[in-house]
């Protein structure tokens, strides 16, 4: 429970940056959905309205989580882990397939994107595991244990197949074990093994669709109307936006349907086309503000558990942004990852606000020891 004096530790910048990003997203979703909703906002079902509704719900979540002591979560990590695994297995067994991957789980009338929920749960579980082993953090056992925790959910999302989220799991784990203080030799040895096994992964584990995506990334002209289409059209959208963009709702690529899923994975192309480089830099500035405030929370955390949760959240967000934007601007092969706070999608938005709530909870309690 909270001590009221601690409320002054609440960081308004985290919530403000989150809200600013979500509003930014709502504006872009509005423009990107004009082809499907030519009459604009007519009701609550409009994606931009839904996006803001989720943000409003997110605010309640932030309040609730800030009030709740994050350390409570540390006591139920086995349950959280079990929920994550059940969700990921569930989505493989009975998920809804979209764009060639099973990602949605329909549950009691709700459509949940399992990997979005699982990401945060696994970060919490991993944080608890590492926090509890501060004394034996240099042991190989600890290192391998943490690896084991993350390998199972990573493998499950990889099977969906969702390479992007698998990479996010990996990045979060890497950042968290590094901050927790594992032996650098263990990390280096692991990374070397990974690098050496890459060819085998490409040949053995990667599905046809993933190899195809890499081939398309390297030369989208091979299949300009098929797999290469999104890559080429996204690049044209962003590139044609120039410095200041064509103006909101004025982008020909967006408004003439050249982008697939313009409110989701390719929303950055909408931004690039309609708001230009200036709009993109504003977006990056907002993310940087949020992420730096997140790192501040991590460094202020009173215990390793809080510090590691905050670190995991920051890494999760920054890699999602990087991968999503990288795909849009032809730096990375296509992999379906939403742009945090911006892309349409309730599960993603809500879980991001849960993450923000956790950061606030960590901040609110970092000096509690004084009271």
């Amino acid at each position, binding site marked *: 429970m909270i001590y009221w004096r601690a409320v002054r530790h609440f960081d308004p910048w985290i919530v403000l940056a989150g809200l600013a990003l979500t509003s930014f997203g709502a504006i872009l979703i509005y423009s990107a959905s004009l082809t499907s909703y030519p009459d604009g906002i007519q009701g609550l079902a409009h994606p931009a309205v839904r996006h803001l509704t989720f943000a409003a719900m997110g605010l309640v979540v932030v309040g609730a989580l800030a009030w709740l002591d994050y350390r409570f979560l540390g006591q139920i990590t086995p349950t959280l882990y079990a929920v994550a695994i059940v969700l990921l297995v569930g989505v493989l067994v009975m998920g809804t397939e979209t764009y060639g991957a099973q990602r949605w789980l329909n549950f009691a009338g709700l459509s949940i994107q399992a990997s979005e929920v699982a990401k945060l749960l696994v970060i919490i579980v991993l944080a608890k595991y590492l926090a509890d082993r501060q004394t034996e953090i240099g042991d190989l056992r600890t290192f391998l244990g943490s690896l084991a925790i993350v390998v199972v959910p990573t493998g499950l999302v990889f099977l969906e197949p969702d390479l992007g989220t698998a990479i996010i799991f990996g990045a979060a784990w890497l950042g968290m074990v590094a901050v927790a203080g594992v032996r650098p030799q263990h990390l280096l040895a692991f990374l070397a093994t990974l690098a050496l096994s890459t060819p085998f992964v490409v040949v053995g584990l990667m599905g046809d669709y993933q190899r195809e995506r890499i081939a398309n990334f390297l030369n989208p002209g091979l299949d300009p109307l*098929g797999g290469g*289409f999104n890559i080429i059209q996204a690049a044209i959208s962003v590139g044609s936006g*120039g410095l200041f963009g064509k103006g909101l709702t004025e982008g020909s*690529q967006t408004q003439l*349907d050249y982008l697939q899923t313009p409110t989701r994975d390719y929303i950055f192309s909408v931004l*690039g086309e309609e708001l230009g480089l200036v709009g993109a830099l504003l977006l990056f500035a907002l993310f940087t503000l949020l992420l730096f405030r997140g790192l501040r929370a991590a460094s202020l955390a009173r215990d390793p558990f809080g510090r590691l949760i905050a670190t995991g959240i920051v890494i999760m967000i920054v890699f999602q942004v*990087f991968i999503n934007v990288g795909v849009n601007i032809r730096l990375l092969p296509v992999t379906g990852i939403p742009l945090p706070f911006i892309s349409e999608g309730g599960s993603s938005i809500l879980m991001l606000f849960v993450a923000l709530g956790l950061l606030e909870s960590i901040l609110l309690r970092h000096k509690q020891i004084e009271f």
Partner: protein
Amino acid sequence: MNFSGGGQRWRSQKPKRREDAYNPGRKFLFLHILIVLLFAILTIQLVRMQVIEGDDYRAQAENNRLRELQILPARGLIYDRNYNLDQPLVENVAKFSAVIVPADLPAKEEATVFARLEELLGIPAQEIAKQVREKREDGNPYEPLVIKDELSPHLPGVDLQIEARRNYLDGELMSHILGYVGPISAEEYADLKNDGYILNDQLGKTGIELVYEDILRGEPGKKLAEVDASGREQDVLDSLPSEPGQNVVLTIDLELQKKTAEILNQFKGASDTAAAVVMDVRTGEVLSMVSLPTYDNNLFSGTLSQEELDALLNEPGKPLVNHAIAEMYAPGSTFKTINGSAALQEGVANPGTTIVSHGYITVPNQYDPNVVYVFRDWAALGALDFYGGISMSSDVYFYYLAGGKQDEGFQGLGEERLARYARSFGLGEPTGIDLAGESAGLVPDAKWKEQNVGEMWYVGDTYNFGIGQGYLTVTPLQLLDAITAIANGGELLRPHLVKEIRDSHGNVVSASQKEVRRLLPVAQENLAVVREGMRRSVAEGVASSAQVAGLAIAGKTGSAEFGSPRADGTYETHGWFVGFAPYDDPEIAVVVFVDKGSGFINAAPAAGRIFDYYFNQRYVAEQEAS
């Protein structure tokens, strides 16, 4: 711990808040740098794309957005000579086609789309795939590829297109004149793409549709349209309207055409091939032109399968061929009019020249007088003057005029002069009618025979030539044109099928004029003698089956032998009649040709019925109508 770089400065902005004075440690500094670094990478790539290569990408976006499309003009209509606006010979009707725009068809969905099209339209998926591939390879993937002239539901990259189709209202009756339009071929497209034709275009393939293509087609327009990713037009930004094609008014009289076809069908007997042409002797206007068998040119407006086309091509009577202009036949006795004109002009004969036909003449072999060749007449006709020679169609009479009779000291024209006169009557060259596929016919002479047959010219060849047999061949239209010149006093005219061109508002743009190809090298009085001979032929001679009560018709029949002899030594014959009326002041000339028939039994009575209709019944019908 190491405090340095951006992290520290950022912190140092709020140094007074004690609880914030944290020690981020090297790891957090590294994370700050990592974040900045990742965004820097993204920013560099964005600057490269949006600022440095921005123009290039903008051009690509414009290229995506804008598409220049052709607006095809409405094709001109065709009317008969009476230009009755309610009775065009052809109309444009809408046809709904399923088309694929290869540029809009995602490669990944191709198989699905083709399979679904196969299901819906019954066209094999491989066939569609092949066509799409070819169109892509042609380098013009934006042009719609017609898959079927039918409706189709929503499939990506598949569109419904409304196209104009030609509907020929009189089908078989007018097909040899009007011809038809068809899809542009690859070679035609290569030639014509700079004239505004598109890959999917239609153009005249034969007949008036072909010859007057430039007039009927009109000027295509253009429009600049904004299209969405599926190729659907969103907005027209700029357009240049198309100019509709002009209308063609034919010289053909539809009612006469109907009657001509009806009469020809009635009199062609067992023959499967026949032709008849009616021409205005004063102007060269063709009033009707019928070739049997015929075909329905509407077949070509739909999608004609290869089997259907093969069937048409292989049918015995060659229905796609216009026998009036494209096929060459021996003219038989009808040629005696030309032979006679030449003989009169050259002084070989005069109206009083009398020759006795014993039913044959003989010619001894040049080298061996014991070998004697016999050339027969169709009967022993006795003594005949020039008029009698023509009216009774004596072969012997015209053997004399053509080849002479050496032993009797009668000098004939000889092959050289005969060929020269035949050519001056327009034989051996196309008449220049405004239809495609006209044949030139053949006028033989000694040089020709030597080159093509490899034999010298004998006097017997001249005899055969003189009665329109042997190597001489003509088209029915050529023969008609020659007789027309005799009828009109020596003007060899260019026959034509178009009376005037009118624009889409009905204003006359141009009217065709009488065109005299040349004047016959025959004096008026000699032509008058030939005309009189032809009059007698109908009135009291062998063409009497062409008689019409109350009408003076001049004409000449012919039954030209062809092929190999039958068991009884006789030959199959082409039946001919060619003539004009009224005798005193000729208005029209008629030729009737029946492939396997007789001039007397088939051709002459058919021509008589046509004259009768033109001068008597039609007049009555018109009087009744008004």
